[in-house]
């Protein structure tokens, strides 16, 4: 065992060469790579922090926008709600008015229909009453209805003769109109009666098919009617009063 000093010198040289080689091809590339990677990581982390800050800024801006949109949405909703309420109220008012108009129209139509029906009923009732009365008078008493009606008009004229004179003034004629032509006997008796009550007046007899059966006396500006219609009107008023009284009593009984 001995030391070969030439080998020692060669090994020192080899070692120094190895130090340089490893420095050139191992340590420096590795350490520089690590430093570069650390710098890269640091840069990326800085960029990430910056990106995070930017993202936070954008997030805040987005939240602000969202809040503003929310407020705007609430205001818009409130405006729309108020507008809808106003529109609804207007529509309700319009609908109510339309309904009232339609109700009024319907009521008018109903009244017209009722009036027409009542008129028809009136006429039918009057016709029936007239036929029945005429037939009954003829069958039972051998009398005509027109004679009896003329006779009744004469009886009614007597109590109100003074009033008629005042209302007639200086009228030259008294016109007696009827639906059908009066019998001659009825005309004579009525003319004699009128002559007695109003000496200066001459009686004139006319027929009017549009007039209700009965007699209408016109002297000057005064008019005295004794027709089936007036009779039925009185009869209806009487029935209406009776029905109204009985309905009121029944409602009062139900209320009690």
């Amino acid at each position, binding site marked *: 065992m001995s*030391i070969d000093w030439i080998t020692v010198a060669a*090994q020192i040289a*080899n070692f*120094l060469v190895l130090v340089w080689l490893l420095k050139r*091809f191992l340590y420096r590339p*590795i350490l520089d790579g690590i430093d570069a990677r650390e710098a890269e990581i640091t840069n990326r982390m800085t960029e990430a922090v910056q990106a995070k800050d930017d993202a936070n800024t954008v997030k805040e801006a987005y939240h602000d926008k969202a809040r503003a949109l929310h407020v705007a949405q609430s205001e818009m909703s409130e405006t729309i709600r108020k507008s809808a309420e106003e529109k609804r109220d207007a529509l309700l008012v319009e609908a109510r008015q339309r309904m009232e108009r339609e109700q009024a129209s319907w009521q008018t139509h109903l009244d017209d229909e009722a009036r027409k029906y009542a008129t028809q009923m009136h006429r039918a009732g009057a016709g029936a009453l007239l036929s029945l009365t005429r037939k009954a008078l003829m069958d039972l008493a051998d009398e005509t209805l027109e004679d009896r009606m003329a006779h009744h008009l004469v009886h009614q004229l007597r109590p109100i003769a003074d009033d008629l004179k005042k209302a007639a003034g200086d009228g030259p004629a008294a016109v007696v109109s009827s639906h059908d032509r009066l019998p001659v006997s009825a005309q004579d008796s009525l003319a004699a009666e009128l002559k007695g009550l109003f000496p200066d007046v001459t009686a004139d007899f006319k027929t009017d098919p549009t007039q209700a059966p009965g007699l209408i006396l016109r002297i000057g500006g005064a008019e005295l009617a004794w027709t089936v219609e007036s009779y039925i009107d009185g009869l209806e008023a009487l029935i209406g009063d009776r029905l109204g009284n009985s309905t009121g009593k029944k409602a009062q009984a139900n209320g009690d």
Partner: protein
Amino acid sequence: MKLSPDQTVMFDAWGVPINATIFFTWVVMALLTTISLLITRNLRPDVPPNRWRTTLEVIVQGIQGQIEEIAQGPSRYLLYYAGTLFLFVAASNFLLVVPGFAPPTSSLSTTTALALSVLIAVPLFGVTNRGLAGYLKTYIQPSFIMLPFNIIAEFSRGISLAIRLYGNIMSGAVIAAILLTVVPFFFPVVMDVLGLLTGMIQAYIFAVLATVYISSATGSPPPPQSEKETP
């Protein structure tokens, strides 16, 4: 039986005989350089490291961590020197398992060369770091009387380093050779495995001791104690 590879001449180069120590040293150098070159040739910071580069980084950073722990601070030149010492000794000892390979570290010439390089490196690093006066001042610390002892200690470090490395590696190889003649199977294998372990430990110890010596020469001197603190 040849105890040292210095005695084995591999070939003549221009009339100069190249022995096994130098030849296998070149083999180790070529191996380390080639591996480093292959792994580090395409290093880019934006490309994730592969497993080989990661392995090298772990080794280099491990050496750097040890050096920084001993030297109390980063020093690239110390890394180059002590790291190369470790890698060279470790690779030489690791290649012991290769049949026909004679580790250069089993040559006293190699260990002497490494010890001499440490002996030269210590004052070089010391002078570079502290300046010539600052370094020479360490020889008379704590007093002028310590000068001869410090000089003896300086040389004894190199001798102890050389003998320690040589003795461990050469003894392992010699024991394996003897056991191979006595018991041809099993024991040489066990001894080789043990030799790998002791070789790695020796590489670590050699590099750490060299780092300690260089660090003691380059480290800043301790602050003077005040009179009140002196017992």
